[in-house]
């Protein structure tokens, strides 16, 4: 089943309030995707998983992207039986990012969502074990956000270091080559 047909099928079942537009393959966009309203993403995913003609049983990846105004979660799905792929995207507001969990649809989503929570701060409502996955439990902030600032000190480890190439190092002479010249002259 190609993505146009999947889009029609989802539109029929959910209506245009939940299943938004289809971005088809064009210049740059190598893989078409369907945009879905964030608060209903779990229902759409469950439908994709259980319907026999869709049967998207393998959740390849759930990941986030920081698009500036919103955080966008990207779901990459694949069907072993039908050999087709589907990409779903849903946006969530940056101020209070929250989405319903898909752990009930695919158990594999458990760690995917923990990782997105860890790195982007998206709260997955209903997740059974929403803790940080890759970073330490007492880490502050969500590093994959574009405006993330690393904390200055973490457990006595100094965090961000200055770039030596950009540091303004006071020197007594303008150019180190001058030093060589003067030494040569002195000799």
């Amino acid at each position, binding site marked *: 089943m190609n993505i146009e047909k999947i889009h029609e099928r989802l539109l029929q079942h959910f209506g245009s309030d939940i299943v938004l537009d289809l971005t088809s393959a064009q*210049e*740059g*966009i*190598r*893989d078409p995707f369907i945009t879905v309203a964030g608060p209903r993403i779990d229902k759409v995913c469950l439908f994709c998983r259980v319907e026999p003609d869709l049967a998207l*049983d*393998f*959740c*390849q*990846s759930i*990941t986030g*992207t*920081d698009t500036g105004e919103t955080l966008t979660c*990207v779901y*990459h799905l694949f069907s*072993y039986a039908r*050999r087709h792929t589907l*990409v779903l995207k849903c946006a969530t507001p940056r101020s209070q990012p929250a989405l319903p969990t898909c752990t009930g649809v*695919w*158990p*594999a989503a*458990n*760690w*995917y969502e923990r990782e997105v929570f860890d*790195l982007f701060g998206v709260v997955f409502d209903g997740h059974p074990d929403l803790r*940080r*996955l*890759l*970073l*330490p439990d007492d880490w502050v902030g969500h*590093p*994959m956000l574009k405006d993330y600032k690393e904390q200055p000190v973490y457990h006595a480890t100094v965090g961000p270091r200055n770039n030596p190439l950009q540091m303004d190092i006071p020197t007594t002479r303008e150019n180190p080559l001058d030093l060589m010249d003067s030494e040569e002259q002195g000799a």
Partner: protein
Amino acid sequence: MNQLIFSYDSGNEMVLNMGPHHPSTHGVLRFIIRTDGEIMREATPVVGYLHRAIEKIAEGTPYESLMPYVDRVDYVSAMTADQCWAMAVEKLLGHEVPERAEYLRVIASELNRISSHAICVGVMAMDIGAITPFPYLLRERETINDLLEELCGNRLTYNYLRVGGVSHDLPAGWVDRCQTFLDHFDNVLPEFDRLITNNEIFIDRSADVCPVTAEEAVAYGLVGPNLRASGVDFDLRRDLPYSIYGGLEFDVAVGTGTMGSVGDCWDRFWVRCEEMKQSVRMLRQCLADLPQGPVYNKPKRIRPTGEAWVRVESSRGDMFCYVVGNGTPQPERVHFRTGSYNAMQIVKLKSRGVMVADLVAFIASLDVIAPEIDR
């Protein structure tokens, strides 16, 4: 002393730490085990000790310059990880790769797959208690490392692939040396089978241990050899062929429960042994049909917009890369999802009611590589 051990006591249950530095945890991996004697209630994996923020580094690194970092995503099978990243950027750019370069990529990847599987099956035997097979396979891996070093100068983290091809053509006489190795390796695997695969003690320790059903494997997203061992007949190289795999002849090994039940530790072990044989078959075909021509089609300008994803059959299964470009030399977002990451999740489910010693066999049979989980 007693007070220390039982400070987390709840009834007869103990909470113990296995790792992060434990000889059988394949890198820095930690399990929190709730156990009552030898039988575990549950083992909860704790990951993140090797998190190097490669996805964040990628946002400030030009597309070509990320290749050495991608090596470190999976340092036991760096060539397939390289291929995943190179293919993702090429797909985003719509860039063509010369045919000879595709052949060289597949030759390098399959050699790397043999060395990676050799480590996996050798280490699994060692973790169970059979020390001897491991050095036998390590010896073969040295030869492969030598061959790959001749190709690109590195023994583990290759940095061989480029966006648009590979960095170097074959050195003189390399095909013959590779052929000699393959002829030698044909005799190694039967010897290995006699040594360990059909060994009665090994079968006792691995058959019927932690069987994963096909439904569980798909639901938890197991990929590659772990998925095939559970009886799901799916291989990206055959079913969604990329590069030149569509033109190669090979069989896909699927677990059948020969020694116990489908998807047990022995099946996972056996699938990897079979895959090494198939890789040798593929290598022979590639070396015979190797075309002449250029090996590197350098892209003029790498500033893509839009997004793309690719899947590559890595040594640890389906490796997924998602890349978003924003018209600058650095990507907007890069995401890798790897085989070990998914394999690690199922440990918690399958560890219930299992002996502590069998957990070691189970982790080893999943071929978990810690840096690949944490990235």
